[in-house]
């Protein structure tokens, strides 16, 4: 039992060290030999534009449900005017960044791991290296830059749509006027709320990019390994996002 735990701890620390090295080398590659703009734009299209529907639908329904659930309690105390404040802040600080990142990790993170895993299995990564090309430059950097840029962009959209969906729900269900809703919402927001949400989403984007590409490129040479990598990437990204969210929330509270 002890031996197995020790072996697991050793494997985990080795994997963590390897991931750290991978992260460092990827960052160096992004700075020293940036990828072609066309490749980055391709990835931004696949990661960002193609994820618009799922992220937007998710944001709209969370906005609606959040408003209804909050209203249920606040109306009892006559505090329904606080609904927009709660929905607005919740979206900016937490719901927007976290739900968007989780959606992206499910849709994109697993996709990246599967794609790179398949390339590993079919020797395409070896072929790149054999031609003197750097897989970090061609495969990792474009995806990393795309996730770091597109997750905040999608988060901003999700914030706007979620709050707007809340506004419509508040008007239809509770008769709160849109102008009143927006005014109360804006009144409660400070720059730090917006910045902290965007900083979180950029970090989540980086986590998704690093973890998914690392797991994809670490895929063993077997077909079933691609499936394992896909699941592993999705789960690892979700854990990293939740832990990262806690760390950043604590940090921003300290800063505030």
């Amino acid at each position, binding site marked *: 039992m002890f031996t197995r735990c020790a072996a697991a701890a050793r494997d985990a620390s080795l994997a963590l060290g390897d991931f750290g090295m991978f992260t460092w080398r990827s960052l160096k590659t992004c700075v020293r030999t940036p990828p072609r703009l066309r490749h980055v734009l391709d990835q931004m299209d696949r990661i960002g534009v193609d994820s618009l529907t799922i992220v937007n639908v998710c944001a709209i329904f969370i906005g609606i449900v959040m408003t209804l659930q909050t209203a249920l309690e606040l109306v009892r105390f006559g505090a329904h005017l606080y609904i927009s404040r709660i929905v607005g802040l919740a979206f900016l600080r937490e719901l927007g960044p976290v739900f968007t990142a989780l959606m992206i990790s499910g849709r994109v993170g697993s996709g990246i791991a599967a794609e790179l895993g398949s390339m590993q299995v079919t020797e395409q990564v070896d072929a790149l290296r054999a031609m*003197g090309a750097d897989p970090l430059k061609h495969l990792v950097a474009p995806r990393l830059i795309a996730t770091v840029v597109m997750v905040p962009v999608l988060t901003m959209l999700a914030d706007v749509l979620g709050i707007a969906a809340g506004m419509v729900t508040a008007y239809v269900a509770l008769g709160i006027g849109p102008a009143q809703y927006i005014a109360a919402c804006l009144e409660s927001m400070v720059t730090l709320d917006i910045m902290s949400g965007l900083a979180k989403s950029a970090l989540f984007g980086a986590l998704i990019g690093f973890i998914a590409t690392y797991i994809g490129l670490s895929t063993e040479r077997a077909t079933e390994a691609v499936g394992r990598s896909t699941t592993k990437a999705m789960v690892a990204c979700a854990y990293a996002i939740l832990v990262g969210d806690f760390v950043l929330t604590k940090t921003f509270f300290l800063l505030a």
Partner: protein
Amino acid sequence: MHGFRFVQVHKSFGSNRVLRGIDLDVAQGECVLIIGGSGSGKSVMLKLISGLLAPDRGRVFVWDAEVSAMHEEDLVPVRRRVGMLFQSGALFDSLSVFENVAFPLREQGGRSEEEIKAVVEEKLNDVGLTGIGERAPSELSGGMRKRVALARTIAMNPAIILYDEPTAGLDPANAKRISLLIRNLHAKLRCTTCVVTHDMECARIVGGRFAFLAGGTIMVEGPLEDIEKNDTRELRAFLGWDGGLE
């Protein structure tokens, strides 16, 4: 002048000792065929030459450069002069045929788009595939994919070409076509050629010096006639002459 050289090379994967002291010296411009059964370590030898794997012990030289002691960045100039045809072709699925063949040229830089286009067309013509530049690899047959991969391999005019099971998964007609192509390219380019195969028909067509790999070592080495006369048990078993099948 040496093309590439193995000096007492050992390589293991976990507890599986694949190579156990390989010594092989191939001259520049020579054609060598490494034959042996599946899992004997033939492909590992090719990956050691191109620096995709590092030996556990021993040294691997390409020309006079010790690739087994080089870092990934230092290997780049060597790899740009060593072409490798992978068993599966390893074409990039997301790129068209043209983009695949143009990839190493773009990666090296220093060429205009017109020059790249001319080289790509020339190389596709060399492998008997003209006018398919816009097609995706998924639209090609296995034989065509291999030939496109070969066009990509020779795009940089490599001084050494490594072929990993070039006829694997092909029907006899396509296998013969690829084998003839390898022989003709060797004659035309005068580059060092190393073919790893267990397809004796392919090996006979390509011709050259044979090295039989078994038990982690080069057991028999020489021209085809010597190989066929040799009565080593492992070699006879590999060639299917030991009556084991009966």
